[in-house]
């Protein structure tokens, strides 16, 4: 015998239709905004001649790592290799996609993390959602992204944002909750308003932990580039995908290596952005 099948699929389709009908304008606005940001950032990165940008990146790394000349040199070498492999334009698109995804993800996750740290109710409500987001295979995010935004860089960015958000949110929440009680008491004892307490004590003290979240967010966004290329996001990820489809090992390897180089550089920059202070 067979159970009558619940019309779950039909219900979801009806929901999608309903959203498209009533919130189409919102989807269009998000799509236009993200498209503008990605295009603008990519245009900006490409407007700077590659050698100049490589030099700037090396100087930036040298500066944030507090004069680590070796790391700055490796940064320059790595980027030169990408340029030499003629992957520069694709790499800049990937960088633009990763940066925009990260910025959007942080713009959502850090305020939510702060809210979760301030309220046990919000924290309890967010936790299952975060668990769901982190355990769901990342491919699944591609489906709603495609449904609402079609194919291209924008749906790729949306899927990436959803995938990259949870760690930044969790670590913001954790960082603020781990601020020593005495330091929170200092803020209160000296008559801080809740806003002063947040900006002068809690956030600065939690900053190293929050930056670990930012770092994770960027790394996840980069790891999503290949998967997002399945729904038309461009850049190095797409190059890897094409390499897989054509069984072109060389092509896939070169693009993959370029992604790794970008990942390492972004990782070192974000890890060193905030100095670690000794507590108490």
């Amino acid at each position, binding site marked *: 015998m067979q159970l009558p099948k619940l019309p779950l699929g039909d219900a979801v389709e009806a929901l999608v239709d309903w959203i498209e009908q009533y919130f189409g304008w919102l989807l269009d606005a998000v799509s236009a905004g993200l498209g503008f940001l990605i295009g603008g950032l990519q245009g900006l990165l490409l407007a700077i001649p590659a050698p100049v940008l490589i030099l700037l990146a090396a100087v930036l790394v040298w500066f944030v790592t507090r004069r680590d000349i070796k790391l700055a040199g490796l940064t320059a070498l790595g980027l030169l290799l990408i340029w030499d492999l003629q992957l520069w334009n694709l790499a800049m698109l990937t960088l633009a996609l990763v940066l925009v995804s990260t910025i959007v993800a942080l713009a959502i996750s850090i305020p939510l993390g702060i809210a979760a740290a301030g309220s046990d109710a919000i924290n309890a409500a967010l936790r299952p959602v975060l668990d769901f987001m982190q355990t769901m295979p990342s491919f699944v995010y591609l489906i709603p992204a495609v449904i609402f935004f079609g194919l291209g860089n924008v749906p790729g960015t949306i899927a990436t944002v959803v995938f990259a958000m949870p760690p930044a949110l969790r670590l913001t929440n954790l960082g603020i909750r781990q601020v020593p009680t005495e*330091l929170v008491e200092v803020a209160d004892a000296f008559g801080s308003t809740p806003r002063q307490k947040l900006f002068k004590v809690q956030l*600065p003290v939690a900053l190293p932990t929050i930056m670990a979240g930012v770092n994770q967010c960027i790394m996840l966004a980069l790891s999503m580039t290949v998967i997002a290329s399945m729904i038309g996001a461009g850049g190095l990820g797409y190059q890897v995908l094409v390499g897989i489809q054509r069984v072109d090992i060389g092509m896939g390897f070169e693009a993959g290596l370029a992604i790794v180089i970008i990942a390492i550089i972004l990782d070192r920059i974000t890890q060193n952005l905030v100095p670690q202070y*000794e*507590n108490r």
Partner: protein
Amino acid sequence: MKLEGSVIFEKASIEDTTSPQPIISVRNLTKVFGQNPEKALELHRKGRSKHEIYAETGSTLALNNVSFDVMPGETFVLMGLSGSGKSTLLRCINRLIDPTEGEILIDGEDIVGMGQEELRETRRRKLGMIFQNFALLPHRTVLDNVAFGLEIQGVPVEERQKKAEEILRMVGLGGYGGSMPGELSGGMKQRVGLARALTSDPDILLMDEAFSALDPLIRRDMQDELLDLQQRLVKTIIFVTHDLDEALKLGDRIALMKDGSIVQVGTPEEILTNPENAYVEKFVADVDLTRVLSASDVMRRPEPVARCTAGPRVALHLMEEHDIGSVFVVDRWRRLRGLVTLDDTLKAVQAGRGLEEIITTDVPTVALDTPLTDIISVIAGSRYPVAVVDDENRLQGLIFRGTILAALARKGEDINATA
């Protein structure tokens, strides 16, 4: 309960020659931690004990109907073992913890009933707080830490930094404004904590085990300095400690706490000579036992000492400058090598010999935890001061005959010296 000891009266009269009003007045304060304060209070009114209430409701009765007054300019010590409720009581005064029942009048205004805005204003203007583990903001410079209170009040940058620098100089840390807290020693950190509390010029200082995390010698320095500052500034201080020694040294009056209640309030003399019940007596009884005190409690800073690499002239100079007949010699790692006497050093200077050749290695030493009873016998049989060394033979402090007598005098029946 006696409200004014003679000492307090003198201090208060510096500011106010008319009959003084209490600056802090705590009335029937009760605090219950836990889910069900109402039920706990009800059981409490029926006369159940703290333990019975916890067993029945899961709530803890942290403060039990506490009342006391503090006069302007008085140093009022809350003393008790851990879990006695002293820190909770302190935190109720600036409402870091909200009391369950009762009132706390500060300058006649009940802080318990205040709204958020009014509470903030009172905390900013009237209440400074100093924390056990210093609680300096690790991402700010010392100067910005000290200026924190004024920053919260919206004082412009230049003005608050000028004030902060002035206060830093006052606590002996002028020139350290640009350092980060992580670069300072414990004693220096707590000076910063003290400076931070003083910068907004509050009438009342709440000090929560402020010196408990410091080494014994540094702790004594800080106590002396607080007494010194207090003479100049005349603040009202509520000082929480578990150390009776500290309480006797600093307090104009002491409140002994047990299980959330105040067991006795009185001047140091009253507490020592007239303990009100067995608990207080037991607490106080330990005090004059030489057995309880160890070398680290009574030792003095090891100064002067000569480095073994220094010449006899340096040693001679040290002895002349400090007017002493012998000086201890240490190596580069402050490990004790021995002692040189004035006579030997004079001869060495004349004969042109080195310091190494005249060191007497046969000097009395004791460990940090050697009880006072044992030290007395050591010092009685020696012509020299006793050196206190740690496990690695590093010189930590010196004990002179006078040191022990002074320590005993402080702790014995005659405690007038401290009061």
